[in-house]
């Protein structure tokens, strides 16, 4: 997970992305582990079809690859979703909607970013209106690389996410809450005054909302 504290600047950020954090576990007790175990069995997905990678979501969800056998099914609204999938390049205009959707999701929530566009810009790396590292604006739990990743890769990503949930590792939403000012500053940098209004996230500041 990417951290703001040490440095700014692209090279430095890249280096930090590559250093794996020690596993920070939040869940300890038996009950917590049971809940985590049930939680990883049931992931409702809000597929945000931002880019071309979205095309791989259809075979994943339907009969051919059948994600439902992992307990992964589509959710109709962000309120009911556990996982937000950013499927590909993220234009600035879309970024606003993604942030809005992400902040509407109920915790615990996770983000899977799909394709090289979300990791480093991919083939849109010099585009004027896409963001290059999604992780700077919303916390990404799992990256799935490829351009575009096959449904098998997506399934592998889901399984990896399930393993992390089961182990009780700290999800990205913890980081979002802890570093909300940093994320908001980054969002403001690219969106300007188009940044979502304060009431969408100010409850993050209001103490430790469970």
């Amino acid at each position: 997970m990417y951290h703001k504290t040490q440095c700014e600047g692209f090279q430095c950020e890249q280096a930090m992305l590559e250093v794996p954090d020690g596993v920070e576990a939040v869940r300890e007790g038996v009950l917590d582990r049971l809940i985590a175990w049930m939680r990883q069995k049931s992931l409702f997905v809000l597929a945000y079809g931002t880019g071309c990678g979205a095309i791989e979501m259809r075979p994943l969800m339907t009969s051919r690859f059948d994600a439902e056998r992992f307990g992964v099914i589509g959710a109709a609204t962000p309120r009911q979703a556990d996982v937000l999938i950013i499927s590909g390049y993220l234009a600035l205009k879309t970024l606003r909607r993604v942030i809005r959707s992400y902040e509407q999701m109920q915790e615990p929530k996770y983000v899977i970013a799909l394709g090289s566009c979300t990791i480093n810009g991919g083939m849109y790396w010099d585009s004027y209106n896409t963001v290059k590292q999604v992780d700077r604006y919303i916390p990404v739990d799992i990256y799935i690389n490829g351009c575009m990743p096959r449904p098998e890769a997506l399934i592998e990503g889901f399984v990896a996410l399930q393993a992390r949930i089961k182990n009780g590792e700290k999800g990205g939403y913890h980081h979002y809450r802890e570093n909300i000012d940093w994320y908001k500053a980054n969002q403001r940098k690219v969106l300007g005054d188009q940044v979502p209004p304060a009431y969408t996230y100010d409850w993050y500041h209001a103490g430790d909302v469970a």
Partner: protein
Amino acid sequence: MHAVVDSLAMIAVSYVMGFLFYGFYRQLNARVQRRWGPSIWQNFFDNMKFFFKSETLTHGPMFFFGPMIIMAGAFTTVLFVPFLKDSDWLQGFSQYGNLILIIYLLVVGPLGNALAVGSSGNPFGVMGVTRGLTRLMGLEVPFFLGLALVMLQHETTSVHAIMAAQDGLANWGLVTNPIAFCVILLPFIASQNGSPFDVVGAPVEVYAGPRVEFGGRLLGVLMTQNMMMSIAKLVLVVDLFMGGATNILVLIGKAFALFLLTTVVSMVFPRLKTEQAVDFFWKVPLGLGVLAVILTVWLPSWSA
């Protein structure tokens, strides 16, 4: 003491049966679509997950009380439907109620739904509720006509008496009054939100319909009541048409057979439009119901 334990047992039985039946439904559905599908416990996992999610949004007190009203409606319905006959257990408060009370309780759910969704102000939710109430106009009349036929046939409103009258296969309501069963069956599928008539939730059409604003714990409550309510209705139809059950295994078997019938129907038929559904209900089940009333009233020997 007995009443408390009994009520808790009924609630537990209906919950467990609910998620297992729905888990089975999802698996069967998957097999029909040539995939493996989730495990049979999937609905339980989903439900538990929602109970342990956070709930950060609110649209005022009614948004919170709506699901509670629906939940209370489901609990009372479960408690007023006798699960077993000739038994002390799984009776709840059914000796104090009758079929007419159950009919009233069945409407509590949609009412609470309308209250909660109305206060959320989400257009998709309101759209879902409108669709639901429109469908209700279609399905209530034939459904209640079918129940009235049963009451007419047995000349009582007590579910216990109706069950007692059906000793042996030849006396099942299914055999003695098949038209009433046909009249009830399709509205019954609709009230379970089964496929040709699932215009309310209407996946991908109006997002989640009335549930669009609910996430987290309130959605968990809604899921729970939905599963329990389905079981209560299944058991009611088993009581009225399949002679009830003397022990829990027979009950599960009969309810499962009925569930299988309704699932198979909903698996094969795609969703109708709202107005098509209402049209259909006013034509086929209602027409059949009117015919059955004429037969039962003017040809009493027919159903005797």
